[in-house]
């Protein structure tokens, strides 16, 4: 497989390939998010317990579930970069981190604004919100470690190790927070296991997938910029810079 991948492991090829994917992914993400959000906001039935406040679910749950997936994706990229010493994978990991952090932030804020009408307070130490908060710290750790190194080759390796350590810890942290929550809080849960009518579930799933595609598209956009930034000494980047950069 590595032989087949090798031509794509060249920065220039990866740059071009990413450029071909980005428009399709962006269109797909926009379509999915539009469909899911409009369906959820306008056509999904009102929840008999929570009224219309539950409509926050269509942005909160996708952000929450994708924030975790993005971290795992970042850790996988970092692992590939560390073990097989593929710099492109390092750059990919570095590109995912800020996107994932913003998604986590969105999950936190929407969770909190959903909590206010439900529980009457802006913050509850609910298991999911607490885990999201810790996840945000993990993201910020990776980002600031990457930013702290002058030499970005080293920065990527250091941040990669941290991302892998973090991904091993995530299940443990999640388990411990769940246990702690059951000990102290009783039974506050954001979404019960009650069956959701398809008119709620389908737009939710569409939005979850839409968030995933959007994260991929944004990461690829950053990835392309990262390739350029790290290859500033290569002739093809210099030509590109002189053609586009001086304006």
């Amino acid at each position, binding site marked *: 497989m590595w032989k087949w991948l090798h031509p794509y492991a060249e920065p220039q090829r990866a740059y071009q390939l990413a450029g071909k994917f980005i428009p399709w992914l962006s269109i797909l993400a926009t379509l999915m998010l539009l469909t899911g959000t409009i369906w959820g906001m306008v056509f999904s039935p009102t929840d008999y317990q929570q009224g219309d406040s539950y409509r926050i679910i269509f942005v909160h749950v996708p952000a929450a579930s994708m924030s975790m997936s993005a971290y795992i994706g970042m850790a996988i990229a970092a692992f590939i970069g560390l073990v097989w*010493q593929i710099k492109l994978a390092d750059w990919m990991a570095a590109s995912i981190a800020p996107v994932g952090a913003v998604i986590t932030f969105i999950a936190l804020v929407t969770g909190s604004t959903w909590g206010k009408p439900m529980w009457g307070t802006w913050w509850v130490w609910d298991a999911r919100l607490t885990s999201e908060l810790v996840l945000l710290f993990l993201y910020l750790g990776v980002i600031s470690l990457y930013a702290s190194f*002058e*030499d*970005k*080759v080293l920065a990527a390796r250091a941040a990669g190790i941290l991302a892998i350590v973090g991904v091993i810890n995530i299940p443990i942290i999640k388990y411990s927070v769940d246990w702690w929550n059951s000990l102290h809080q009783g039974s506050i849960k954001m979404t019960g296991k009650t069956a959701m009518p398809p008119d709620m579930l389908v737009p939710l799933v569409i939005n979850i997938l839409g968030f995933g595609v959007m994260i991929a598209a944004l990461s690829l956009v950053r990835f392309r910029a990262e390739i350029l930034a*790290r290859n*500033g*000494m290569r002739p093809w980047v210099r030509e590109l810079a002189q053609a586009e950069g001086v304006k």
Partner: protein
Amino acid sequence: MTAQSNPPLLSASHLTCIREERVLFDDLSFEINGGDIVQIEGPNGAGKTSLLRILAGLSRPYGGEVLFQEDPIVRCRDEFNEALLYLGHLAGVKSELTAEENLNFNLRISGYAQFDPREILARVNLTGFEDALAGHLSAGQHRRTALARLWHTDCKIWILDEPFTAIDKKGVAELEELFIAHANNGGCVILTTHQDMGIISDDRLRKIRLDYRFI
């Protein structure tokens, strides 16, 4: 140089070093055999220390690889480390420990069980200072505490970054003689220095030149 049947002790293959988006050297290849004394020369900032650190396996090159007897050093790290003696700018001498304790530790961590520290310290003119804390020694004595391990080693590859710093003329001469003896024994010495060497003649010394690159 006569053609040798043995594989080169250490070889650099297409090394590229990039520091903070600046190319220090690109596609650098050379071979170092037993018996070589190699000086890396070049102006400040040309990447001499970076090259030595890459050769020692402390830094990973941006591209290319370093081979120890034709095996990449990342794949035979333990064997390579056993054959390597590296002394950097920083001596690795603890100022809270005495000269003798420092030498003891340095040799034991390199794996040597049997040695007489006082005799080795006498070789570098530190007799009488064995029990002095390294923090109280002069710069030259401090440096000699670090260099002392050169007198008790079976490593083939010596990589020395500025070994003569703070060493007096007599000490430099002794070190040069030691290098020649080591090379004659089939070892190799790779070093950087800004000082002129008196004993190692120019035809004995191999030079690898690095230039400051602007792009």
